[in-house]
């Protein structure tokens, strides 16, 4: 079975005005998306998500590398009969109604006007714009959420095998976001393959079979959500922290920031490290208030990879992602998605897409090409580490 999307060593460079060097918007990216798979493509703004999608749709051209969609080269006109695209914050002709917009796009597939109109009306109903008041409204009167629904309707006009959705819930209020997410779940139930670019992590977590994280154009992690989040950790809360203990903690757990004699920080759930901290606290007259198993969230992983500092909870407790960068999860897939749904005949991409969730760790200042190829930089997480329970008292 051919892959829905296959990307090999894709690079896209943009020249920098008045400079010799070029910027890599996408840097040696390789991945495969299986048929029927909902694939999350995460990254911060400017990470290279939209550039990748545009290459896959033939809107821009790669500097190096290859990309194929549904077994044909990216941008192939025949493939465009079977794919759909919803750009970020889509704009439609303002003077039209939702039905007219979708009819216009239907006619681009060669449908006769009557057939196009009939299908458009069906889809406008499907996305919840079929009510009397919405039906006669022009796009110029639509809210952002309503426009997004029109975008989804136009993306379904050809009953596509593969959907490219770029930030479909970006900038929407909670209700609109939930509605769009429900629509995506409905498409998932219908068996559509989807390449979902987003930084709305809850949506991705809810919808996707597999997820990848791209940062500065480079692939940093790929695997199912469960696999990627298996790097379990514990949150350690310590009270009565003396200056001496604070200094010791600083070397052992750099993310521990002491505020008014107390600190809370997150550590990898590894017995040696945790026991060492407990010993240190006991020896310095500190008090362990709690050790709480903490499931890693996609946001944790994302922030760690993107390397930004975030604040958790009250009291100025914080951790720096780069400081607490995890070792690697490497586990078997268990999400029920057929392994054969993803290609395993490409040696380069094997490390990324078959039976392992992989995080490619970048050293500070490391060049990425090295990091990308650095499957050797991965370690297997130790089993049996999930045995800590919440502790109270000293």
């Amino acid at each position, binding site marked *: 079975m051919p892959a829905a999307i296959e990307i090999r060593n894709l690079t896209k460079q943009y020249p920098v005005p008045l400079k010799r060097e070029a910027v890599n918007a996408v840097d040696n990216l390789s991945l495969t998306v299986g048929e029927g798979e909902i694939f999350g493509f995460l990254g911060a703004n400017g990470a290279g998500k939209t550039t990748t999608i545009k290459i896959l749709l033939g809107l821009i051209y790669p500097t190096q590398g290859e990309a194929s969609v549904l077994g044909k080269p990216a941008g192939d006109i025949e493939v465009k009969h079977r794919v759909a695209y919803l750009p970020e914050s889509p704009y439609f002709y303002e003077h039209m109604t939702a039905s007219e917009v979708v009819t*216009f796009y239907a006619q681009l597939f060669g449908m006769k006007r009557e057939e196009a109109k009939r299908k458009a009306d069906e889809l406008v109903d499907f996305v919840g714009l079929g009510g009397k008041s919405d039906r006669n409204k022009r796009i110029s009167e639509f809210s952002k959420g309503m426009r997004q629904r029109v975008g989804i309707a136009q993306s379904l006009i050809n009953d596509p095998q593969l959907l490219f959705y770029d930030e479909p819930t970006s900038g929407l209020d909670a209700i609109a976001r939930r509605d769009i997410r429900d629509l995506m779940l409905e498409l998932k139930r219908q068996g559509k393959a989807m390449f979902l670019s987003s930084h709305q992590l809850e949506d991705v977590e809810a919808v996707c079979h597999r997820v990848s994280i791209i940062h500065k154009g480079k692939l940093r992690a790929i695997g199912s959500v469960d696999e990627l989040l298996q790097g379990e950790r514990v949150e350690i809360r310590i009270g009565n922290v003396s200056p001496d203990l604070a200094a010791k903690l600083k070397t052992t757990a750099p993310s521990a920031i002491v505020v008014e004699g107390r600190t809370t920080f997150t550590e990898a759930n590894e017995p040696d490290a945790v026991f060492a901290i407990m010993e240190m606290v006991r020896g310095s007259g500190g008090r362990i208030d709690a050790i709480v198993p903490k499931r890693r969230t996609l946001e944790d992983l994302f922030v760690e990879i993107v390397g930004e500092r975030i604040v958790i909870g009250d009291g100025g407790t914080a951790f720096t992602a780069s400081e607490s960068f995890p070792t690697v999860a490497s586990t078997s897939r268990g999400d029920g998605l057929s392994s054969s749904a993803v290609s395993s005949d490409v040696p380069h991409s094997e490390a990324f897409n078959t039976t392992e969730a992989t995080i490619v760790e970048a050293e500070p200042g490391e060049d990425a090409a090295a990091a990308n190829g650095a499957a050797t930089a991965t370690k297997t997480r130790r089993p049996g580490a999930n045995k800590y329970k919440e502790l109270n008292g000293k």
Partner: protein
Amino acid sequence: MNVALVIARNTISEALRRKVLNAFLMVGVAVIVLTFAFGQFQARQDLTIVKGMGLGIISLAGILITIILSINLIPNEIERRTIYTILSKPVRRYEFLIGKYLGALGTLLLNILAMSVFFVIAFAIKQALAGPENPINPLSLFKATLMIYMQLLLLSSLAIFLSVFTTPLVNFFLSFSLFIVGNLSSFTQDLAKNGANPIVKGFFLAVHYIVPNFGNFQYVNPLVNPEVQVKSEFLFLSQNVIYALVYAAVLMILAILAFDRREV
């Protein structure tokens, strides 16, 4: 080609709602009306002047509508990102470009036709009231508006060609400048022949042959000045139509070639 027609129809429908273009159309119609009103106050006002002014206004409004419409057709689609949803459908880039061009031509046709019909009817009434010795068939004015339309067809292809690789602002001045230079073709031809040195001669020769000869389409003169005679009207009209179509086709082919590799 069906896809190009769908895009063309959509382009027309959108363009007809653009306020700035409608404003030019309205001003054009209003000035044509005013021209006739002035004529009534000046007893010696000649119908010839009315013809000249009316056709001049149609031409001027047409030029402004053409340039403003054509320079924005492609950049607007890119800026608003509507081009992404269109080109991600089974639409070839040349179909998109041809569709936009046909849409521009359709819009221009409707605008020029509206002004022309208004002008011809008003002229017929004016002529009937004045009762000149040698009345002309008011419908013959359509020949002049046909020439104006062919001139605009060519200008639109030039502006669309330039819009593939220039910003709308640059394109506005460039298209306008080339239109003026193209109207001065006899002048550039003289400079090419009688230039001071070979470089100047070569430059004006290149300008003369590369820039479309917009001055060819001046049918206003034979209409306005009876002493200006056209040997064969049919030949004059058909040559100009063919010239405009061939030149526009070449410009559109160049635009398609450039747009095909353009990143959107």
